[in-house]
């Protein structure tokens, strides 16, 4: 199959292709070197038994090391449990979230914390809170008539 490209078009496509390759190289390097990948935990859980499955039977914050925390959240219509957590500034928090009912979102605006919460799976996402203040945690996937009320707080002291 013979396709002849006009010289200008060849140049245009080479530039476009080079741009895409540069983007791909950047995000691939960030993924391999810095571990900057989207939240992709593969761990299943029976959502009807969340309240009996450790550690989700006692949702909340656990200190696992110096400045390192794990936070276990249960999402259900239309609230998060725990409703508030408190961590010192500079803490690295790893969030584990699961749903007992429908699809939810788990997002802390102005941070990189953002993941879907699918019933049947455990989502995982980490963030280091450097600045003090109250962070709003919202459900950002429609889950029903009270979706707009589904929010919680992260207090960074």
């Amino acid at each position, binding site marked *: 199959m013979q396709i002849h490209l006009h010289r200008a078009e060849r140049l245009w496509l080479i530039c476009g*292709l080079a741009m895409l390759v540069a983007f791909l190289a950047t995000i691939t390097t960030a993924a391999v070197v810095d571990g900057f990948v989207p939240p*992709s935990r*593969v761990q299943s859980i029976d*959502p009807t038994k969340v309240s009996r499955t450790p550690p989700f039977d006692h949702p909340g914050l656990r200190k696992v090391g110096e400045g390192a925390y794990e936070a276990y959240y249960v999402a259900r219509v239309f609230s998060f449990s725990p409703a508030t957590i408190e961590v010192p500034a500079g803490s690295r928090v790893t969030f584990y979230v699961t749903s007992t009912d*429908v699809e939810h979102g788990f997002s802390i605006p102005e941070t990189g914390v953002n993941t879907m919460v699918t019933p049947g799976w455990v989502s995982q996402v980490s963030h280091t809170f450097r600045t003090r203040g109250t962070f709003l945690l*919202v459900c950002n996937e429609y889950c029903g008539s009270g979706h707009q009320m589904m929010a919680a707080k992260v207090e960074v002291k």
Partner: protein
Amino acid sequence: MATDAGTSTEPKAALARADGDLLALTHIYTATLVLGIGALFGVLQGYSRANFIVMPPAFDYYRMLTAHGVLMALVFTTFFITGLFTYMTYRSIPRARSTILGWTGYWTMLFGTVMTTVTILSGNATVLYTFYAPLKASPFFYFGATFLILGTWCVAGDVALNIRWWKRSNPTQKTPLPAFIAACTMLMWVIATLGVVAEMGLLIPWSLGWTSGIDVSLTRMLFWYFGHPLVYFWIMAAYAIWYTIVPATYKGAVFSDALTRVAFVSLLLLSTPVGLHHQYLDPGISAGWKWLHTVTTYGVVIPSFMTAFAIFASFEIAARKAGVRGFWNIVRRLPWKNPVFAGPALGMLLFIPGGFGGIVNNSYAMDVLVHNTMWIVGHFHITVGGPVALTFIGAAYGLVPALSGRKLYAPKVALVQVYTYFVGMSIMSTAMHWAGLLGSPRRTSDVTYFGANGAATWHPEMVWAAVGGSLVAISILMFVIVATGTFLADRHPANTPAFAFAPTDEEAMPTPPALDRLGRWGLVALALAVLAYAGPVVQQLQAHAYLAPGMRTW
């Protein structure tokens, strides 16, 4: 090359053509009506988000949002596209033909649309247009959507039969370009809709209570297997107009027949194996599979680069032939006062930020910054709501008179309409993108969160979005008035308004015959889709055996 073949003198052929025109016209008027209803819901949402109004519980925000999403994304676009492709196929392959399959498709689509819309408006399917399980809608919602898709398959079959007739009658000639584009896009659509029809195969028995649980992740994956090519279905139809219809408005030509076919075949191959980029933040799919879809999504950008080149080249070649040189002279020469040109051309302008925004969204882990925020809403309004809708509206100003033999009602209103739309959509989508960067979530009726500090920063953007949205809604009302006026005024000029496909540039290279073999390209496309999805589907099925009961949380 393929030009309007309206010179047939045989009465039988003339009758067949009149019926074919009526079929395409009916699709376009249905799309127009749906656009009008969808715009009303859209502007009310804008006012709700800006806290100007509060929707009553009897007809709440989420019900309206479901109606807006389904009517705009799934119904308006689909009816316009099936009408457009019926027109492009019938006009570029002139023959005496039966339109029974085409009409069967239309009535099936309409039946499904009415069933789904009534179910949504009655409050029994407030599941948004993505209908993520285990939110469980009334079975009529899923049945209606399935009928809508099965109807489009009839249209695809009709296009395919016409292509087959052409190949048998003209074994040595390539398929006319407009019919080729229609067939290529409908083939992509059939491959893509296999996913959502399979999903319906799981949802329907579950919603009827025949099965007790549903695999939530599998239905999400099947939805997005369809959901992204859905986007390309819209874009390919807009490209079809940019390539074959728009150049006729400035006495230009298709830049290259062969390269146009290369672009469409690439879109056929690469539109489907990309859907995981909508699921970057989903648990249960490993990062490696998501990365693979990042690569293929970048690949599907290439035919868009080709299209951008071909369109600007066509502008320049036409100007040079008329002895015009220099960038601004070429721009000035274009028919900016003809809405059939101005609509699509303004749409092309919107597609520059829209397309680059899409590349941003595809950038893997960066998606955490924008996923499910207003940025995404801004993105699809500056793509499907901008280039696609403006191109369809602009083309309708040419198609409706050509198909109905009527004079366009209030052409000045039509011209003002496309510019108003452009300004309104620019304001609205910019404000939405900005609110998204600040973290404002999408799909939420009220984002004040009991007066939380961060949430207050999103309000000014929402007011701007409501201002832009008002302009868009006024503009769509103007479009509906022109379309209705053309029908009601019923004025017939002595000569049917000319509306022909653009010829191909005569200096372009010949088209390799391999490009014309759509059946084989379709098989390659299917193989690529299977390759891209086999891994993630197996991973989910292995890790996961939980079946969710349905829930009605609204």
